[in-house]
C-alpha cells in the first residue's frame, strides 16, 4: 500500500492503494469514472484510454504508482472542454459513432494527437488512432471526423 497523489479531472486527489493496481480499476471503482471502459484488458483496443499530462495511455495496463504527481483526464473531464465539443460534433456529423463503445477512447486519442499535431494528415491520423479499435464504423468516417475537427477547431489545439 502507498499513498498516491495526482490530479484527476482538475481536482487534487489522494488514494491509498497498491502501486501495482491498474489505473483503470481505480478510476472506475474508486472514483466512479465509468466512461473509462474495459475492452481487451491488455493494451490492444483503447477503450480504457485516458490522458496523462495531455498524452494518451491505456489505463488497463498503467500501474497506479506511475501516476504520482501527474495530471489525469478521463472522458468525463475532457467532455467539459470546447475541444471535446468540436470533436464530438465532428464525430456525429461524419457518422463516426455507431454503438459508441469505442467513442470515448477515440475522442481521447484524437485529443492526444491534436495536442501534438494540430493539423494532421490522414496518414498521421491513422497512426494516431492506431491503438483504438472500432468494430462498427469503417475507420474512414473517424478519420474524416478528426480532420474536420482540426479545421473547425483551428486555434483550439
Amino acid at each position: 500500500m502507498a499513498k498516491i497523489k495526482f490530479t484527476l479531472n482538475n481536482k487534487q486527489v489522494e488514494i491509498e492503494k497498491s502501486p501495482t493496481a491498474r489505473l483503470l480499476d481505480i478510476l472506475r471503482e474508486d472514483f466512479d469514472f465509468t466512461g473509462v471502459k474495459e475492452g481487451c484488458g491488455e493494451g490492444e483496443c483503447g477503450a480504457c484510454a485516458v490522458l496523462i499530462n495531455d498524452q494518451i495511455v491505456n489505463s488497463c495496463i498503467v500501474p497506479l504508482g506511475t501516476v504520482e504527481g501527474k495530471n489525469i483526464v478521463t472522458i468525463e473531464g475532457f467532455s467539459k472542454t470546447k475541444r471535446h465539443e468540436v470533436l464530438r460534433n465532428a464525430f456525429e456529423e461524419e457518422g463516426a459513432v455507431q454503438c459508441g463503445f469505442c467513442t470515448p477512447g477515440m475522442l481521447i486519442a484524437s485529443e492526444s494527437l491534436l495536442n501534438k499535431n494540430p493539423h494532421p494528415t490522414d496518414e498521421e491520423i491513422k497512426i494516431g488512432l492506431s491503438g483504438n479499435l472500432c468494430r462498427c464504423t469503417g475507420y474512414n468516417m473517424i478519420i474524416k471526423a478528426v480532420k474536420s475537427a482540426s479545421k473547425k477547431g483551428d486555434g483550439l489545439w
Partner: protein
Amino acid sequence: MKNLTPKTLKETLILLNEGDYKILAGGTDLMIQNRAWSNTLPKFNKDILLVFNLPELKYITLEDDCLHIGSTMTLEELLYHKLTPKLLVEAIKIMASPAIRNMATLGGNIGNASPAGDSLPVLYILNAIVVIESIERTRELPIEDLIIGPGKKTIQKNEIIKEIKIPMSNFTSIRFDKVGGRKADAISKISFAGVAKVKNNTIQDFRVSFGAVGPTVVRNKELEANVIGLTVDDMKVNIQEILNEFGNFIRPIDDQRSNKEYRKTVAINLLKSFILSL
C-alpha cells in the same frame, strides 16, 4: 507484498541490494504477463519496485561522441527527440500505438529480452552498450552480452539498467523492416535492421541484424567484415554468395519446418533488398 515506489535511484539501488525485487518500468509487458481478473491486483510472484518516474533515469544527452539514453525514456519521447538516432526512430514508428509508446520504455524493451523486441536489432547494429548499476559498481556490457536467450539476461538481481550508450556514427544508408503486423503474434514477425557507409562507391561500414529468427537477435560481425572494402558493384555481382553465407548463419529454431524455411527466406529477402538499395 511490498510494492514500492522509491523516490531516488540511490534508494532504489539500496532496496535492490537488500531484497528480491522485480523492476517495473512502464509495465506494458509486465502488467500483461501478470494480468489477473478485472478489479484485482496483477499477480506478481515477487515484490515490485516502480522506477518509471525516477528522475535520474530520464534523460538523453550527447557526450564524448556517444549518445546516452536514460533507461526509462519512453518510446514516444524518443520518437520525437531530435537526438534519437534515425534508425531507432524508424523502428519505434512501427512499434505498438501511441498509447503504448507513452508508457513503454527503452530499458523495458531490453529488459523483456524478447527475440521479437523491435528496438533490439537496431541497438545491436548501433553497437549499443548497456550501462548497469548496482550499489557496489557500475558496469558496461555490449547489448549482445546482456541478452542471452528469450527473457534471459546477464543482469544480477541487485542491478538496474541505467542507460543505453550509443557511439555516434555516420551512415549513408539505414533500413528497418518488419514483416508481420503489429497485432500478429511474435511467431510471424521478422525484423531486419541494416546500416551502411558507402564512400567512392566502396563499402566502408556494413552492419545487419535480424530479429525473431532465433532465440536472440542475430548479427555476425565476421560476415560483415568480409564485405568491407568491396565496391558496391562487386557486392551486387556477388550478392548470391553473400546471401548464402548469411543464410547459413540464420537458423530459426522452430518445430515446424515450413515455418522455419519461411522465416529464413523472408530474412534473406530483407537483406537482399537492403544490399540492392546501396
